[in-house]
């Protein structure tokens, strides 16, 4: 126990390189590759921490000043998914998400309970996220591990459900997106689509994605978005010109630098991810399976891109208007496509339907992100990230995803029973799809 504590006390930037070095050795990448892999991950961590520091130190006080000056209580800063992923992987619990998810996938494939083979190892950070969140709430390490396992099952169920819509609309053959930030929106999109079909006249309206893409394209450029937001927020905070302009460049810097730091994490993880995915695939060679990939593949689609660009100003307006919302949308504004991309195949590319549904989705999401703010901050501190003095942080990905609320809420109010029930329900869903339904055919 003492050895373990000593190890944890080394801090994330030392502990994680060691953990991932061991993962890489287990997957037989060779010592040299394993060493590079571990060190690159450590460097990425240090980088994310630096940029996060810049963000909380520049935007934190501004958000507080905005409350005093303008009465807008948006003090919880959306740090964006790149930082959220680093925080999620930044603990022993979080890093265990990788072996746990792989084991769950292999187990379910072996029993024929899923057709999804999730090779998108990087995005296991989402299950590390819910696991760490439940751990921050309950202080129960084993329950955190259990949550990771259950969330991995939920993702495979989502992957199986999505596959047919993904193939028929996007045209990706034998592929699916068991992506924890994107897939849950499918459950809102399905019933909404049935509703939209029943509204006379409305069911005939379409919009042209190309023109939106040209007019709103600047919302997709994160650096420009950083400039606009810094300027606007500084102005609302009642800053002097000099301070407004300084904030503007700082927020632009955060928007540009944060992804670069996370790209280092990804680079370090790539040899591990490659070895792991080829390892899983080798075990199940000739079966008729869907390959689980990052939903980023769909983001270039004109309908996805246009709908998400429109959602940038809508999300900002919602954050200001909604009473009780305290999240200041920032880091994830340029990544909104991840939240909405899998609604698009359900609506067959209809942008109006996507935007209406996405608006409902983000309004609920902002409240969830507000609610998890303090827990998110505790999670970041657990992973050795410095969030500055009394700044509360959160993120829209996955803070605004309803499954995050289901996991955190179940963990908080029902503990083991709650998470267990989610597990049983999703196993039930998989049994239904692969045993009962197929028998009928």
């Amino acid at each position: 126990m003492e050895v373990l504590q000593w190890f944890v006390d080394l801090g994330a930037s030392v502990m994680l390189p060691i953990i991932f070095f061991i993962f890489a050795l287990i997957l037989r990448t060779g010592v040299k590759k394993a060493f590079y892999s571990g060190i690159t991950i450590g460097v990425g961590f240090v980088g994310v921490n630096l940029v996060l520091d810049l963000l909380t130190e520049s935007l934190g006080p501004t958000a507080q000043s905005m409350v005093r000056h303008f009465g807008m209580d948006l003090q919880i800063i959306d740090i964006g998914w790149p930082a959220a992923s680093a925080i999620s992987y930044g603990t022993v619990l979080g890093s265990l998400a990788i072996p746990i998810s792989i084991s769950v996938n292999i187990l379910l494939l072996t029993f024929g309970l899923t057709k999804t083979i999730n090779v998108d190892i990087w995005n296991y950070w989402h299950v590390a996220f819910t696991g760490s969140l439940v751990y921050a709430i309950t202080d129960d390490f084993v329950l955190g591990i259990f949550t990771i396992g259950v969330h991995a099952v939920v993702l495979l169920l989502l992957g199986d459900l999505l596959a047919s819509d993904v193939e028929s609309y996007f045209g990706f053959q034998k592929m699916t997106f068991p992506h924890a930030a994107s897939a849950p929106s499918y459950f809102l999109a399905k019933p909404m689509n049935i509703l939209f079909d029943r509204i006379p006249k409305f069911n005939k309206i379409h919009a042209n994605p190309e023109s939106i893409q040209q007019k709103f394209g600047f919302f997709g450029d994160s650096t420009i978005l950083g400039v606009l937001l810094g300027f606007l927020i500084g102005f609302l905070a009642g800053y002097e010109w000099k301070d407004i302009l300084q904030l503007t460049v700082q927020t632009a810097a955060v928007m540009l630098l944060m992804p670069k730091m996370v790209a280092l994490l990804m680079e370090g993880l790539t040899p591990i991810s490659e070895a792991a995915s080829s390892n899983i695939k080798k075990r199940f060679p000739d079966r008729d399976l869907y390959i689980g990939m990052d939903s980023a593949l769909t983001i270039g689609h004109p309908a996805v891109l246009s709908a998400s660009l429109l959602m940038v100003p809508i999300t900002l307006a919602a954050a200001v208007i909604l009473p009780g919302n305290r999240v200041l949308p920032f880091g994830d504004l340029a990544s909104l496509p991840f939240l909405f991309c899998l609604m698009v195949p359900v609506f067959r590319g209809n942008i109006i339907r996507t935007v209406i549904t996405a608006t409902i989705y983000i309004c609920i999401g902002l409240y969830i992100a507000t609610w998890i703010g303090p827990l998110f901050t505790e999670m970041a501190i657990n992973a050795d990230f410095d969030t500055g003095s009394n700044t509360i942080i959160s993120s829209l990905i996955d803070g605004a995803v309803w499954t995050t609320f289901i996991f955190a809420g179940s963990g908080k109010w029902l503990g083991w029973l709650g998470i267990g029930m989610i597990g049983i329900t999703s196993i039930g869903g998989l049994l239904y799809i692969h045993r009962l339904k197929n028998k009928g055919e």
Partner: protein
Amino acid sequence: MKKILVICGTGIATSTIIIEKVKAWLEKEQLNEQVELHQGNVHDAINKGNEYDFMISATFVPGGLQEKAIDGVPLLAGTGETEVYESIKSRLI
């Protein structure tokens, strides 16, 4: 020297994986001296696509740029990688 732009939805995640794979392949083929790899998102492709010789894409390529792009998805899926490398090679020589 050829300039290649590797794009994905965000220019962060999947494009990193593709770049790492292409880099390793270029080194193996001893072509790495002839190539400059850049990373970006869909908006970079729209705004600066013409500055590059060709693109490798992990997502849908905007209209008008299809001819310039090689579909990089097989590199992520792990099936049909050889064909992708072949078409990169044919554009390099």
